[in-house]
């Protein structure tokens, strides 16, 4: 069978002609298709491109946060009291992690957790993100990362570090895990220290590398460094001496405040018990309490210089005026005020030196309640100190119109009103600054303080001399003496309130004073709560802390001794009136 080939061009199949209408329809449809495609392309590229641009950006553009570092807290000499260091936080993606991974046990062990606890944290969190532990030390975090657990990641954060530890804990305070101030300076100046994070919008490539900025970055504003008036060395010495004394006298607690007598700058403020702000597990309220600023107590005899100062200022008495304190008791509207001894006739100076309640009361009863109230108020009692610090309290001085005679009498020697230790220290600037009370500050300030006149310079000088006598032979505060520096101050021993009355055998021991007495450089106030190792008097319990703190503080400040050096101080303190 033969086959005949037919040329393509003469194929009979091609001979039949397509109807012109169909051809045109096909061409028309194809043209329409192109027009639709061109229209769609124009829409995607030109008219409606916002949506597509956005979708594209979502896939490759990222916003990176530029963290702002928290400012440092420095002491007056630029020594770091609080700083931020890098710490790693560990998080997991629960959907990615394999709970039967044997490496989880090793990771838990490195982080100080049990495996059960580790797994519980994973299961309790959400699906995409769970913190396992935050602010882990970097070496530990890197070891955990090196285990190569799938779904476990590190995130760099900042952690606060407090090199001074417990000695400056109540001043500096601390931040929480979110880097927000919780106590002390960290809380009071949180806004200034925090700064403001910035951001940048970038394009990342397939490997996660940043290849381009899509717009100008917003730079982070770092937190401001804060320079305090605190001197870290004085702070440490004050804390150390206070702690030793609280332990030695089995006291419940204690506080010490050191002020610059000329500028009002706070050089040290310490409380015991304290805490280490770097390790804040299991803290108690007792440890956290900044007693020197937030607790108010009856100051006892440390108030007497103000009563005596007012008596001198009003011209009713002179330092050498005699006051009869025999028989050591005085009854006012049925209540008896007493001294520990019958001191007989004392000069006004002697009243301070011996801390006679009877003598002080006799002088106070010559004055109007209004005069006393005005003097106490001018000296800052009952007024909240203008100190930028959380929880500062102002104590209480009742309006003079409500004072009964016995209350006027007891207030003259520090009962029936309340003040914080910080207020006591600041009030004594009246005597160190020629009668002017100066504002206190916790920030370093170069300019001199501007004060308000409370007493005349003459009265202030007279009281200063009496304060020096109170720490001299026969005074109640002899243990306040230092080697090489003259001191002056007033001890106080106040019964503690319990309900409506006073608790038996519970006292607060105070000492407030200054040095060198001729031209005071520092004021130091000390308070011990419930000393219970036998001795309770401020002159015996609180004055030694004053002595040692002042001794070291003046040396650190470069103050030259103003007295010839006595190698040994032998002091037999006398008992004072409660």
């Amino acid at each position, binding site marked *: 069978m033969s086959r005949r080939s037919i040329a393509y061009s003469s194929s009979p199949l091609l001979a039949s002609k397509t109807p012109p209408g169909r051809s045109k329809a096909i061409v028309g449809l194809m043209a329409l298709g192109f027009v639709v495609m061109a229209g769609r392309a124009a829409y995607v590229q030109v008219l409606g491109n916002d949506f597509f641009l956005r979708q594209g950006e979502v896939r490759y553009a990222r916003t990176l946060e530029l963290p702002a*570092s928290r400012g440092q807290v420095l002491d007056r000499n630029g*020594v*770091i009291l609080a*700083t*931020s*260091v*890098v710490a790693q936080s560990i998080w997991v993606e629960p959907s990615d992690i394999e709970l039967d991974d044997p490496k989880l046990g090793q990771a838990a062990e490195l982080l100080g957790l049990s495996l059960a606890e580790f797994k519980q944290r994973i299961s309790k969190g959400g699906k995409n993100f769970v913190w396992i532990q935050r602010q882990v030390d970097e070496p530990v975090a890197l070891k955990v990362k090196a285990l190569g657990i799938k779904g476990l990641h590190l995130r760099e954060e900042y952690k606060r*570090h407090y*090199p*001074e*530890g417990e*000695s400056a804990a109540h001043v500096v305070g601390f931040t929480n895990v979110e880097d927000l101030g919780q106590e002390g300076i960290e809380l009071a100046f949180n806004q200034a220290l925090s700064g403001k994070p910035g951001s940048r919008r970038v394009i990342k*490539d397939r490997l996660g*590398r*940043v*290849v*381009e*900025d899509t717009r100008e970055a917003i730079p982070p504003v770092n937190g401001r460094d804060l320079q305090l008036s605190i001197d*870290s*060395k004085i702070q*440490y*010495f004050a804390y*150390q001496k206070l702690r030793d004394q609280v332990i030695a006298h089995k006291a419940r607690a204690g506080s010490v405040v050191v002020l610059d007598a000329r500028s009002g700058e706070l050089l040290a403020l310490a409380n015991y018990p304290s805490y280490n702000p770097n390790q804040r597990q299991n803290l108690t309220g007792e440890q956290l309490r900044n007693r020197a600023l937030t607790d108010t107590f009856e100051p006892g005899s440390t108030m007497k210089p103000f009563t005596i100062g007012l008596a001198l200022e009003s011209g009713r008495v002179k330092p050498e005026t005699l006051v009869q304190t025999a028989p050591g008791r005085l009854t006012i509207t049925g209540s008896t005020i007493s001294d520990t001894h019958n001191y007989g006739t004392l000069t006004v100076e002697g009243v301070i030196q011996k801390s006679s309640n009877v003598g002080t009361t006799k002088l106070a009863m010559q004055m109007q309640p209004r005069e006393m109230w005005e003097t106490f108020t001018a000296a800052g009692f009952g007024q909240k100190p203008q100190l930028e610090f959380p929880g500062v309290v102002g104590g209480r001085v009742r309006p003079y119109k409500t004072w009964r005679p016995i209350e006027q009498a007891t207030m003259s020697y520090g009962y029936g009103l309340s003040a914080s230790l910080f207020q006591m220290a600041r009030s004594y600037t009246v005597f160190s600054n020629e009668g002017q009370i100066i504002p206190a500050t916790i920030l370093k300030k170069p300019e001199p303080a501007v004060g308000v006149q409370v007493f005349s310079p003459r009265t202030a000088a007279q009281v200063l001399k009496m304060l020096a006598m109170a720490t001299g032979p026969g005074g109640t505060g002899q243990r306040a003496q230092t*080697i*090489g*520096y003259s001191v002056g101050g007033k001890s106080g021993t106040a019964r503690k309130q319990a309900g409506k009355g006073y608790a038996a055998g519970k006292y607060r021991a105070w000492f407030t004073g200054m040095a060198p007495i001729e031209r005071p450089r520092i004021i130091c106030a000390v308070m011990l709560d419930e000393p219970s190792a036998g001795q309770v008097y401020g002159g015996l319990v609180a004055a030694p802390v004053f002595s040692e703190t002042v*001794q*070291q503080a003046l*040396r650190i400040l470069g103050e*030259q*001794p103003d007295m010839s*050096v*006595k*190698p040994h101080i032998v002091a037999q303190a006398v008992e004072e009136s409660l």
Partner: protein
Amino acid sequence: MIRFNVALLLALLVSAFCLVNVRYEARRVYMALSKAQSQASRLEADYDQLLAQKRTLAAPVRVQQLAAGQLRMRPTNPAVTEYLQSAAVAAVKGQP
């Protein structure tokens, strides 16, 4: 005319290749800059950490412990201190 068009086409191609190359180079340099910047911030963080460590090592509590424990030192006081007036200090400094 054809020659001119060919020349233009070549110029366009060269320009396009240059653009791609420059863009690649820009990204490479940018990545290097980012890396350097992150290294700088890392070094800065390390510096802060070292400062904090230095301060911890020089904290009064540690100094006191070492001075009293290892070196058997005690705090000074005016009884064992000689104070020099600034004139005297100047005289001492002036000595050969």
